[in-house]
């Protein structure tokens, strides 16, 4: 496991990312890809009050909604960064949504899926250099827009 502090955020650089949806993807085992929310997503979502993930056993296409979250009375979708069948959801995050913020890469993981289209992995951000650059760019953009405080 390797991680870096990027402009104030601790980011694991050995994972793949769907930066648009603020998701990390551990695709070391394509038949059991683990997905969670990245620290930047945690920061910009606000305090999670509710998190509901659909039951496992359903096939989804990349970008489809696999659940929903609520922060500040705002309900938004949780989408999958890859196509595949959801094989497990983390039961603890529904009971304790705060886990996602406390330990986004560990106990706060969201769901696991069996990927059905390995070619989609190429569309995620991967590699230490690319991940670092991607996060730096996104954090700077958010700061310029006033989305993140210094």
């Amino acid at each position, binding site marked *: 496991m390797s991680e870096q502090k990027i402009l104030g955020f601790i980011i694991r650089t050995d994972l793949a990312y769907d930066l648009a949806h603020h998701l990390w993807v551990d695709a070391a085992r394509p038949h059991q890809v683990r997905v969670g929310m990245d620290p930047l997503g945690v*920061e*910009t*979502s*606000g305090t999670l*009050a*509710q998190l*509901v993930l659909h039951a496992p056993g359903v096939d989804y296409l990349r970008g489809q909604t696999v659940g*929903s979250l*609520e*922060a*500040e*009375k*705002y*309900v*938004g*979708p949780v989408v999958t960064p890859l196509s595949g069948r959801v094989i497990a959801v983390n039961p603890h995050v*529904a*009971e304790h949504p705060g886990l996602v913020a406390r330990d986004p890469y560990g106990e706060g993981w969201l769901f696991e899926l069996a990927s059905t289209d390995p070619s989609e992995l190429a569309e995620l951000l991967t590699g230490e250099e690319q991940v670092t650059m991607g996060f730096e760019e996104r954090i700077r953009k*958010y700061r310029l*827009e*006033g*989305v993140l405080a210094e």
Partner: protein
Amino acid sequence: MATVMRVIDFGEVSPLRSQTLWHAIAYGVSAGSPPTLSFMRPSHPYVSIGFHRRLGELDLEWCRATGLPVFRRMVGGGPVYLDGGQHFFQISVPEAMTKGTRTQTIRSLLAPAVEAFRSVGIDAHLDEHSEISVGPAKICGHAAGQIGSAVVVVGNLITSFDHQAAARIIATPTPTFAEAYLRLMKEYVRATPADPEAFRAAAAESYANELGLVPEPGVMTEHELVRLDELDMQFQELEWLEGSPAPVPTSVKVRAGVSLSFTATEEI
């Protein structure tokens, strides 16, 4: 790029339609209708529960006995009592028009409502919990969500508020708890009698200014009307009403920042 903000005033509508109309519009905005500011008020009292909340938070027997329908909405927040003293407004915009965190989105889409409250003589402000308040009391119930690719923020001008009824719909563990909840609600939720028509006109102006759009009266599209029929059915289905399982709450909220814990009768 939108240049027009559609404005639709539905007036008084049934409880069911006071929910399904704006959901249908949000789906319409998601499908390409212009950003839309809509208004309505319910003809009869009813109860609305937030997307993630448990039906068990409500005293359903009481609701049934008093003839209060219960509808689950697709946006957040808790269970609320709604009646004709509450004049609803909803702003629906494409997600692409929003920027920043969820909090920033909500605050930016509530700010024009604050301006509208102020323009009808109410000394409203958006507090640190993103509640529209006068002093410590919340004066507008709001909620938000993403419906398709549209973001909708809903709120209300409360010209009269039945605290007793609003507190009674909530399942409470003991009569003492219920009394404490009612007392807090009277302290922290208040009506602001103002001219609803003047409020609607001010809101149309302030939302159009905020979004940089021209307000134009409009009607629902064919697509939205079809969606409306579907939503009417969906919202009356037991499965939809029961919703997704959510954790058992440990407290009941009066307003943001003011809750009553089930384990101790205290403000937290």
